[in-house]
């Protein structure tokens, strides 16, 4: 059965999430984003996993704000005199994004939740610092987790 998304522009994002939680089935993704922060060379590789309720929103369409709204809020928060957000309307009043494929949703998530200096031009660096893979490509255990790095030979 097709569920039609109400017109949500101008509706608080949190209220939209209530609607989605009630109406949409969560979607567990097999995709994982493995990344290393070049500013923290001693840190292990990080693995970002999409939230199943969030992915349902992304693939439904008409719920999530454009990723640029998050970038603007991030810029505000980076200001030295930042106290609190005064442009929350960027999340609530901008036109929500259309439905995405799972792959498009992963790209959106990378640009939202991973630092820009990691994903920008990631494919042009000598050392691979970001890889999108399936969960079965990752170790099925947690042994030596704090030593995990991206295998440069496998992703080359």
């Amino acid at each position, binding site marked *: 059965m097709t569920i039609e998304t109400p017109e949500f522009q101008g509706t608080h994002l949190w209220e939209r999430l209530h609607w989605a939680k009630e109406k949409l089935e969560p979607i567990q993704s097999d995709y994982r984003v493995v990344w290393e922060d070049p500013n923290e060379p001693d840190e*292990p590789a990080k693995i970002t996993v999409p939230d199943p309720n969030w992915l349902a929103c992304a693939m439904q369409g008409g719920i999530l704000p454009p990723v640029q709204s998050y970038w603007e809020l991030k810029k505000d928060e980076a200001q030295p005199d930042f106290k609190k957000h005064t442009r929350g309307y960027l999340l609530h009043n901008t036109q929500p994004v259309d439905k995405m494929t799972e792959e498009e949703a992963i790209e959106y998530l990378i640009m939202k*939740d991973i630092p820009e200096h990691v994903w920008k031009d990631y494919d042009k660096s000598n050392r691979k610092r970001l890889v999108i893979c399936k969960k079965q490509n990752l170790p099925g255990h*947690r042994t030596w987790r704090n030593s995990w790095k991206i295998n440069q030979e496998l992703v080359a």
Partner: protein
Amino acid sequence: MSTLVIDTIQGKTTAGSINVRGEGSNNTNLQQGLAKAWISHSGYNTPTAEDSFNHASLTDVGTGNYKYNFTNNFRAAKSYTNSGGMTHDGDQLGTYAKVINPINTADILTSSVEVSATYVGSSSVGVYDYDNNYHSCLGDLA
């Protein structure tokens, strides 16, 4: 007994503020008392959300170390509460106090919070990958 069947409750004086009569003369503010984000997730293999609200993604940072990324940002950094705990299937470490909390206040951003699953025993302390992890946040949203 009466049943109230409605879609929306809105404050008359301030739309986003509803007071609930509490004990004695106390009032509880409905909006201020709600969890604005919560998650239940596994800690083995690659940690995955079992269920959640207002979470966009979960980043596995290292052993017992997670970053929760929100869909709706909080209004201010370091100004919302974080509380959580964890359990093992079989509860092998039941004699330990176990909390999920941010280690550094600098990790409490409006868009995300980085936390550690920490156990404390009578002679030991550390972070660990527990089977089940739970976390929630209260505070004002952007």
